[in-house]
């Protein structure tokens, strides 16, 4: 079993993984009413529009909650911190925290977007915001 389960993009989220390869975190936005949707969906729940485009996230957010994820069958694999990030745009996003030890993670701490290559897959990650880490 690989250390990382790679994403398998479909019609509703291909844009996202294309953006990640260019180191952008793209949020789906309704072209008609502007509502942001994460996870994305093909129809806007606010106005039922099927038209959408994307908006790059600022990359700033805070940690709503977090865990340390040990690989279930490879105990020697480096554990990863998984966090639910409240992005400042008002949507939530699951990602890993990087550049911080678990003992220093705090709920509500400010984080900012970065990217990592793991097992050949580019993934969005979040690190402590610069003003916070200094």
């Amino acid at each position, binding site marked *: 079993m690989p250390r990382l389960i790679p*994403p398998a993009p479909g019609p509703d989220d291909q844009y996202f993984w294309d953006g990640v390869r260019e180191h952008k975190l793209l949020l789906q936005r309704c072209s008609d009413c502007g509502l942001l949707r994460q996870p994305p969906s093909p129809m806007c729940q606010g106005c039922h529009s099927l038209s959408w485009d994307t908006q790059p996230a600022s990359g700033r957010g805070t940690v709503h909650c977090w865990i340390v*994820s040990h690989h*279930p069958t490879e105990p020697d694999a480096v554990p990863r911190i998984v966090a*639910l990030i409240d992005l400042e745009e008002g949507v939530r996003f699951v990602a890993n925290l990087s550049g911080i030890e678990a003992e220093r993670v705090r709920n509500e701490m400010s984080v900012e977007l970065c990217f990592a290559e793991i097992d050949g897959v580019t993934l969005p990650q979040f690190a402590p915001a610069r003003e916070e880490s200094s």
Partner: protein
Amino acid sequence: MSASSLKDQAVIAGIGQTEFSKESGRSELQLAAEASLAAIRDAGLTPADIDGMVTFTLDSTDELLLMTCLGIPELRYWSRTPHGGNGAHTTVQHAAMAVNSGCAKAVLIYRAFNERSGRRFGQPNAQAPPLGWNWYMPFGLDTPAKIYALAFQRYMHVYGLSNEDFGRYSVVARRHAATNPGAWFYQRPITLEDHQASRWIVEPILRLLDCCQESDGGVALVVTPAERAPDLPHPAARIAAVADAQLVNGSVLFNYYHGDLAEFHETRFLARQMYEMSGLGPDDIDVAMIYENFSPVVFLQLEALGFCGPGEARDFIADGNIDLGGRLPVNTNGGLLGEAYIHGMNNITEAVRQIRGTAANQVDGAEHVMCAGGRSGLILGKP
């Protein structure tokens, strides 16, 4: 149709089960057939009386193969309920609707699996992840323990709980299992020290002894119209309320998008429906069977069901309220941690036994028993 239309219209007339084990040594179809026949006989019926069937979408047993096993000649109604144990009670809702509408006269509900010796739910799924899992699996949310623990961490943070607080529930569940001969952990209670010495599954939230079992076994129920209650060999368990509760932006596994995750929002909706339908309130409930894939979800549900206020479940449990003899005995069979994990269906059979007065850990004078699974639930009453 009003929300109260299912109140007191149907009863759970029969219950059946196999033994609960870690290796049944037989097919899931056979487990389903054994549990089903036991439930039909318990209701004083024969397979020829059954004309409806309900199970989980996840169940591997085909209805027609089960009909063939049991010799059920004609089936007029069948349905399946989505997702896992959170929806266990939705099977009863479907059955109650079927008999109440006249679609069927006697509905067999079954759930059977080799969930320990076969495909283990607690392990990562090696197959391609289903649609919508791209947002979670690549980041390492690859087991149910991690998926649920992420939200539990928020609850711990907001109300200042430690893993030891969760352990107090596990101790109660195992104590109840220890005096239930049907439980896998019969005569094997644990102490809080045992709990704290068990290995981390998801640090700092879940230890091994916070997790439900993986079990092999089958459970079945028979639902009939309430009019049949006087003819039944055992006291009927009257369905005073049964409800399903889903919310927009919800997810059964990845339920991360409802405001502050220190609250179980679906369960609040569930409680509102069950109390409205039954005309009862939290103070009327004598026993609660609470689906617990992991111990923290008992805390979240006790609060959302109105048995205590937000953040008060820690003290509610520590003060002995959920013990036998307490204000609200919870999971008197040992629950999914102590008895077995038959996707929550074994909590419904225990609720029926409490109403009949035949439970191993019988609560004297139990008039109303609630079963809750976060997103579905029911209240049973004496006939």
